[in-house]
């Protein structure tokens, strides 16, 4: 069975009438890298909270259908059981700093203290995860003195150190500068390469095209399309959903409409694909 399994999930936030998620069916296999895209208000964050168990345990509201992560039925488990299986990180790096700790090293150890990991194992695991996320040299700094990109890597490290089975990331790079974003994405890529199951909400289509195994497109609380990055990211359905296409895809579509780009040829998503495609058109 799939590691993450959502079956016919519909969810309403408290005091709202329209569901934020409508009949969602989603399976994610172990080791898969799934990207979730969609316009604002499509339900992407809600999906993240649902997988991580914060819906219904933290946000309450009405949840129908079943959500299973690593065999654990999140609705009937406690939140703390859920968070051990699923690591959740989100947009604002600043708000993910616990505030309970004075150094980065302690900050990362916070989750392990809470779950009762013995001190010696704690020190080892924190050291390993700091190497992995490239923040070893920040160990003794105050988490509040760091740049956004560094803080976000600390937030990621704080989640990874708990060794979750699934990593759920809700736009982890959207509030960062390009360098910070790239550093965070490097970590995500590395984790995926090591076999971690990753569910990533992200707007940077070019990255998704290069690294995701599968893309899920959402709109109005529904999954409107699902498939390989090459298929989803170039589809005209996506162009109409308000999410938009990468500019390379747009250029190629423009070329199609002018009869320059052969209909049967695949549309590009990334710069490299566009360069290859367009140079093939040259006489």
């Amino acid at each position: 069975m799939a590691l993450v399994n959502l079956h016919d999930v519909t969810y309403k936030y408290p005091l709202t009438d329209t569901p934020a998620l409508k009949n969602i069916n989603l399976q994610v296999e172990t080791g898969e890298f799934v990207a979730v895209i969609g316009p604002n208000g499509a339900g992407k964050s809600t999906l993240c909270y649902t997988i991580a168990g914060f819906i219904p345990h933290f946000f309450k509201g009405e949840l129908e259908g079943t959500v299973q992560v690593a065999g654990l039925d999140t609705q009937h488990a406690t939140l703390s059981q859920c968070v051990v299986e699923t690591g959740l990180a989100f947009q604002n790096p600043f708000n993910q700093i616990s505030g309970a700790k004075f150094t980065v090293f302690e900050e990362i150890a916070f989750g392990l203290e809470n779950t009762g990991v013995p001190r010696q194992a704690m020190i080892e695991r924190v050291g390993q995860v700091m190497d992995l996320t490239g923040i070893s040299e920040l160990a003794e700094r105050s988490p509040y003195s760091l740049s956004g990109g560094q803080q976000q890597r600390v937030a990621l490290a704080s989640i990874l150190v708990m060794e979750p089975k699934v990593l759920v990331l809700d736009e982890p790079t959207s509030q960062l500068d390009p360098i910070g974003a790239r550093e965070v994405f490097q970590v995500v890529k590395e984790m995926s390469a090591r076999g971690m199951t990753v569910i990533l909400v992200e707007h940077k289509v070019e990255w998704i095209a290069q690294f995701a195994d599968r893309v899920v497109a959402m709109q109005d609380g529904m999954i409107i399309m699902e498939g390989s990055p090459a298929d989803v990211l170039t589809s005209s359905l996506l162009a109409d959903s308000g999410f938009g296409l990468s500019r390379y895809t747009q250029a190629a579509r423009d070329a199609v409409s002018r009869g320059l780009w052969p209909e049967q040829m695949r549309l590009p998503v990334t710069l490299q694909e566009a360069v290859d495609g367009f140079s093939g058109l040259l006489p």
Partner: protein
Amino acid sequence: MHERLSFYIPRESPLHRANPLTKLVLVFAFILISYLSPWYWTASLLILGDVLLSFVGRVQREYLRTVARLLLPVVGFLFLMQSLFLPYGETEIFSFWFISLTVENIQIAFLNASRIFVMVSSFILLVLSTHPSELMTDLTRRGVPGQLSYVVVSTLQILPQMQAKAVTIIDAQRSRGLDTQGSLRKRIGALVPLVGPLVFGSLVEVEERAIAIEARGFTSGLPKTSLREVADTSADRVARWFLVAITLAVLVSRIWIR
């Protein structure tokens, strides 16, 4: 900008090495003794004790500076007010209109002022020589709820952040023409547009932060472990019981002597 609101001065000293609970017990013992002791000069003696301890803890400079800037003005003002306006007292030194200065009033005012001095200056010593997370780690280990220590420590860190945010908001408002200079009324009026963004913004942040710490198993209910190791020697235990015993002795003497 301050990274955090902490008065801790990292130094190598017997006071720094002492267990945080021992220091906390010392603070409360000093306060209780200064109030309970039947002897008039106890509080003054304890002030001397605090000053000596600040040298033991090698934080005398920071201690004396804080006392001079923060504590002396407040305590001095209290002393002045009480000596001038307390309604009792017979041995008049001088009187003017409704003000009368009497020996008894000066005595009472001095006692009250010195007790408050003991209270605050002992706490100053505690925060100068104890890392906040060390104190909270130790208290949590002894059964104080983790939530309480979270509130204490995170407040220390988040207040300076909020301060910085307030400055940003004020700057943003001023760049759009808000006048924050001028008369007192104008200045108070200028605070109104600050409150909304700061308070509501903080409430949103609280939700996110709650999610972030929940995601790290904050309420897991499992027995917590701690990265920090806080030493608790037998000397600490002896010192604590000794302090408790003295406090009790003073309490008994108080009841006895009356």
